[in-house]
Structure formats: structure tokens, C-alpha cells
């Protein structure tokens, strides 16, 4: 399930909805991304963040990423919700939930979804700091590296 919205999301309600009346889910992992006030160690604190996206392509990319995760791991269900518009420090930005029979699959799929979302979903963040200065957040090479590790990722230990 994929959603792009301005409104906040309710993490507990989304997990409950994903789980529903299922009796084949043994592991649920959620990832929530939150606006930090101290996004840059040495710059002034952030007081606002605006998230722009590419309507149409955003949904297509998220659907593609979700389909790839579900092809790689035996997920029972998954959810991706991303907010757009104006946010403040402490506000939720993104929610990814994965439900699987075993914990390793739920963890890896959630991790993968976030890494790919960070490098391929067409969202852009603009920050305004307490001095009034605005700047577009720059992409990090560490995010590319994180996404690249899935290209030839060896399977780790499997548990449940």
C-alpha cells in the first residue's frame, strides 16, 4: 500500500491495519523518518522543511520499489507513506512497514525499501534555518552506497 499525503500518519493505526486479522504474520518492522532540528552539525538549527515531489512519478517509483521488495523477500504485506508539503522539526516524514512470517525478511525488506526510496523516489527537501536562510538538501553519497549494497547483497543468517 502506497500513499503520498500532506497530513501526518498514525503509526500504530497503520501497523494494526497492515496486520488486520492475519494469523500468518510473525514479524512486523516499521521505519519512521522524522525531521531533525540539527540536520547539519555546524549550521543553524532548522525550523522548517518543505517537501516537493513529482506527482505521478512518485507513486510509480514507490510501487516499483515495493514490488521489488516483495519479489526479493516473502512479505505478507507492506506499507509506504510519504508526506509532502511543509513540515517542522519533530514531524514525521516517511513511514515504511513490512510484515512477514520471519523477522529477517521483515527487517531486510524495510531496510531495502528505505535505501531505495532515498535514492530513487522523486522527493526533494528544502530547509529553512533559524537565520531565515533556505537551502535545498543535498543528496548524500552514503545513501547511494547504502542502496548499492543491495545489488550484490549476500544472504545473511536466517532466523524468525
Amino acid at each position, binding site marked *: 500500500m502506497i500513499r503520498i499525503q500532506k497530513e501526518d500518519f498514525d503509526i500504530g493505526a497503520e501497523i494494526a491495519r497492515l496486520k488486520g486479522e492475519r494469523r500468518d504474520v510473525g514479524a512486523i518492522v516499521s521505519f519512521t523518518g522524522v525531521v531533525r532540528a540539527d540536520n547539519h552539525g555546524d549550521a543553524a538549527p532548522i525550523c522548517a522543511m518543505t517537501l516537493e515531489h*513529482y506527482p*505521478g512519478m512518485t507513486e510509480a517509483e514507490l510501487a516499483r520499489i515495493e514490488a521489488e521488495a516483495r519479489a526479493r523477500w516473502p512479505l505478507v504485506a507492506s506499507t509506504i507513506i510519504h508526506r509532502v508539503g511543509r513540515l517542522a522539526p519533530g514531524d514525521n516524514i516517511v513511514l515504511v512497514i513490512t510484515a512477514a512470517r520471519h523477522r529477517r525478511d521483515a527487517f531486510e525488506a524495510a531496510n531495502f525499501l528505505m535505501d531505495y526510496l532515498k535514492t530513487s523516489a522523486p522527493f*526533494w527537501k528544502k530547509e529553512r534555518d533559524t537565520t531565515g536562510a533556505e537551502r535545498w538538501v543535498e543528496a548524500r553519497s552514503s545513501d547511494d552506497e547504502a542502496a548499492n549494497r543491495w545489488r550484490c547483497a549476500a544472504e545473511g543468517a536466517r532466523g524468525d
Partner: protein
Amino acid sequence: MAIKIRYFAWVREQTGRDEEELSPPDEVATVADLMAWLKGRGPEYAAAFAKPEVIRAAIDQSHVKHDAPIAEAREIAFFPPVTGG
């Protein structure tokens, strides 16, 4: 043939527009050609596309490389590397 060109984030701010319909000449065959052609359309485009290597492109809402052919494109978007999540 007219193509819808869309701009996002600072590419949008620098070109001063979020989308437009353009009909580049036939010799504009790839995404890279299109950026070079756009650069000549005025100082705001020259500024936006000053460093084309940092700009990402999508054709019909799918990521493409700069050597992708644009012949079949209905919509081409230019934007900086994504920073969601």
C-alpha cells in the same frame, strides 16, 4: 513534436518555471542534447543547466541516463538528485 518539459526543486527555481511545452529541433536526440539546447534558451536556463552532470532526468516518469534517446518521449523532467525519506 511538442514535449512537455518539467522542472523540480532548484532546477525549477532557476529556470523560473515548473513546466512548459517545447519542440526541440530534430538534431536534439538525447537527454544530454536537450539540456545543451535548453541552455541556449536564456540566462535562467544557462544558470539551471550550468552543470548538467549534477542534474537527473526522467522520461515519461522513469529515471533515465543522459544518453537516453528522447524521440518517443511525451514528458521529460529535470531535477537534482532526490532527497526524500
